[in-house]
């Protein structure tokens, strides 16, 4: 029985359970099918056992818990966790309704249905000895959970709560069978933390060495206390050195995180500006209603979710083409109705489209409401990807970054590889000549404007996931978008990409020491000064096309 020498009855039970659970994990498919085929009549089912939790005295409850542990059921961990925390509630019915409380929300422990607001639910009482028993079980359950994320969380929880001899033994037992590298590393760190407190000198030395590779806050704390208070000078200096190397790595990951946030902000700017890069950059039309087209795209997402409440998971994928179509049509209507009369008079175009933006805003306010609409995020887009304890990335931002780049390259492809793109470029370079060779320039104008507007709508779908969807959504982006296009160089798609990303990065690196608002002001001032220096942007158009 390896490292544990003192076997208390509780330990014996625990180890027996561990064995059993391991066995269950290994034989899971077989076990499951066996259960389906011939339900053992004597053995109470999992659901019955859970119901029994609400009845009887504490001793009976302890017995029920032990029986529960023999069931391999994925709901078990949640139920036991809630029971320990005092968040498991039961009603007085027969059989009782068992609910798990998290914050203000109540969910049925067995079928997962929403019970929020239900009355008559009472906490299932637990005492200290039951709590200790439960903690051990929960820890084991989680440590042997088939999902590696669950196992990782369990080890993390040990590290946070402090590792004692009992858990150290558990971890040591688990260590050789652990398949996931991430979990195995975490176990190493947890064991090193334990060794650092209790081991002999060599073990502690080794522990410091292990911990120098860990990014946990607890590892740093433990090392710091060794570096400051330990009697052994060698250990102190080793710990200090370890802290230094950890700090260096943390700095590095912070930097990576900053870069990622910068790029993520950049991708948002890119999405907002890229449609403008077509209408303003290629056609030379100042469309001040661009922001409102983004807004329409965002409202389309909301509309799709309202119309098809069952398809929330798919709503974004439906909204992308829908928003593209709707905003493209609105854009074509704007072009045919207003802008085409104003070609060659950019200042008038600016004013007229600004008027349109006011009308569109007010229309949304009157039609829907001046209040923000709530757009739900589908499951697959929410959550965070935590790479290590210092660096975690939200999926929303990651997807928006990828989406922004995808839209960019799709647009690039359209402009460079399709007939439409060819004609668009021809008209923008030399309208008369393009007409002479048979391009219907009016038609192309409308389509180009529709394309730029459609992309604004698609951007709106993405933005609906990170900002408030309200009538003022567009206004917040219009100045930034123009800045991006002007900074990148009018008429240059690559310039737009580079400028959006660099503006995002600059903004994000200025923010920590200047504050969000001042950072924005500084970026604007920098841009204003930059335009003085290079009025045509980072990548000015060259050759004949550049002539006014």
């Amino acid at each position, binding site marked *: 029985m390896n490292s544990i020498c003192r076997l208390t009855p509780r330990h014996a039970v625990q180890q027996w359970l561990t064995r059993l659970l391991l066995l269950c994990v290994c034989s899971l498919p077989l076990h499951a099918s066996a259960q389906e085929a011939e339900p053992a009549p004597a053995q109470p089912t999992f659901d019955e056992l859970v119901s029994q939790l609400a009845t009887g005295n504490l001793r009976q409850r302890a017995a029920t818990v032990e029986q529960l542990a023999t069931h391999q059921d994925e709901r078990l961990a949640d139920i036991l966790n809630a029971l320990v925390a005092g968040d498991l509630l039961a009603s007085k019915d027969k059989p009782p309704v068992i609910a798990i409380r998290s914050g203000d929300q109540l969910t049925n422990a067995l079928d997962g249905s929403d019970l929020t607001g239900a009355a008559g639910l009472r906490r299932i009482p637990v005492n200290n000895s039951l709590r200790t028993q439960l903690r051990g079980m929960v820890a084991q359950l989680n440590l042997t959970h088939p999902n590696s994320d669950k196992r990782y969380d369990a080890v993390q929880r040990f590290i946070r709560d402090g590792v004692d001899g009992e858990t150290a033994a558990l971890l040591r037992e688990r260590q050789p069978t652990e398949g996931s590298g991430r979990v195995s590393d975490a176990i190493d760190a947890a064991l090193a933390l334990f060794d650092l407190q209790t081991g002999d000198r060599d073990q502690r030395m080794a522990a410091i060495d292990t911990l120098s590779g860990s990014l946990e806050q607890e590892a740093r704390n433990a090392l710091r206390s060794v570096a400051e208070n330990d009697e052994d000078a060698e250990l102190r200096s080793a710990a200090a050195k370890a802290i230094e190397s950890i700090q260096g790595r943390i700095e590095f990951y912070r930097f990576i995180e900053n870069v990622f946030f910068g790029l993520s902000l950049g991708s948002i700017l890119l999405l907002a500006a890229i449609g403008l890069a077509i209408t303003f950059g290629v056609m030379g039309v*100042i469309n001040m209603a661009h922001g409102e087209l983004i807004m329409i795209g965002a409202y389309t997402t909301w509309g799709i979710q309202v119309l098809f409440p069952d398809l929330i998971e798919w709503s974004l994928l439906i909204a992308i083409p829908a928003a593209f179509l709707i905003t493209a049509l609105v854009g074509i209507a704007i072009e045919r109705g*207003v802008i085409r*009369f*104003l070609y060659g008079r*950019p*200042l*008038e*175009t*600016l*004013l*007229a489209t*600004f*008027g*349109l*933006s*006011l*009308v*569109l*805003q*007010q*229309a949304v*306010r*009157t039609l829907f409401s001046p209040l923000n609409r709530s757009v739900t995020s589908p499951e697959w887009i929410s959550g965070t990807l935590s790479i290590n304890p210092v660096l975690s990335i939200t999926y929303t931002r990651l997807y928006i970054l990828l989406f922004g780049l995808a839209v960019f390259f799709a647009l690039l492809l359209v402009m460079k590889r399709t007939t439409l793109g060819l004609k668009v470029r021809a008209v923008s370079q030399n309208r008369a000549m393009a007409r002479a060779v048979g391009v219907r320039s009016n038609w192309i104008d409308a389509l180009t404007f529709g394309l730029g507007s459609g992309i604004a709508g698609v951007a709106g779908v993405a933005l609906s996931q990170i900002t408030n969807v309200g009538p003022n959504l567009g206004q917040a982006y219009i*100045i930034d978008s*123009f*800045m991006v296009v*002007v900074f990148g160089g009018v008429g240059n798609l690559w310039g737009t990409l580079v400028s959006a990303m660099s503006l995002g990065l600059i903004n994000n690196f200025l923010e920590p020491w200047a*504050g969000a*608002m*001042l950072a*924005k*002001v500084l970026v*604007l*001032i920098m*841009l*204003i*000064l930059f*335009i*003085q*220096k290079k*009025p045509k942007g980072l990548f000015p158009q060259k050759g004949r096309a550049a002539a006014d």
Partner: protein
Amino acid sequence: MLTQRLLLSDRGGMLVLGLVLLTTIIVPILNLAVPTDSPLYVSNFTVGLLGKFLCFALLALSVDLIWGYAGILSLGHGAFFSLGGYAMGMYLMRQIGDRGVYGHPELMDFMVVLNWESLPWYWQGFDMFWFAMLMVLLVPGLLALVFGWLAFRSRVTGVYFAIITQALTYALMLAFFRNEMGFGGNNGLNDFKEILGFDLAAKTTRVGLFVASSIALILGYMACRYIVTSRMGRVIIAIRDAESRTRFSGYQVESYKLWLFVFSAMLAAVAGALYVPQVGIINPGEFSPLNSIEMVVWVATGGRGTLFGAIVGAFSVNYAKTFFTTFSPETWLFILGGLFVLVTLLLPKGIVGLFDRFSRKGDKQ
């Protein structure tokens, strides 16, 4: 000679100025001398409203001067207007003295809230009226000088200029929203008590401010008229119509534009300084890009490039705004937005152009 140039050859302008002058004389009499129950009585509210419109008209004049005559579209004139307003507001705040909520002899209420120890350096001197008035002109003037110098020197024109001026006022708005700036943050400057020793709540002070605004408008109009009819004015119109050709003829296009821009900014600042004591508040919202672009619509609606058209536009659009925002606030943005589109599409010369078309006597540039 000068009267001929300024007055007689400008019939539309004389008509508008005559109306302004008439209002300036009649409204104070009807407000002060007529009993309140008489049907001829002009209420305090109307006096305040007309005073506001006069400031807006001066502001519109400053926009028309550079847009209508030099072809420089500034979407950031609200910045100069607000800076002038803030300078005046700072003077008015210093006049409050220890009558603030916290009763501090020197610090403003919002500074006490922020736990500031002493008055920041840029608030020094604003207790003196002459200094504050100097700052009303100097601060926006200097900003316009630096900004214009940078912009015109690198030949930023047309829509690019419009967009960076919009960014300028946007940046200033964000900056003034910050509490640390020391201008009252979100709430701005308000709760003024008196100006030059006169109680701001008193009827006579309000009428005094109304008359001052009206005189400022008339003088401003004369100054603008003087500029556009001078030799310099002709060069400026030439720049508007053919910038390169003017440059190749040997004129320093940049300096002409720059001085006109600075003058226009100062005019806007004066309008702001007169506006603030009449409405009793100045906050960062005045910097918002929408305000600046609204000014352009006043000019476009009235008729750009005529000066008096700007006054007509400012009065009519703002009258409509007051009417609709009290009568049915929902429709106002539809109307304003529609105005932008209709005026640019159908009425490129504005309301004034409409009259010209009927009378067939267009004597315009």
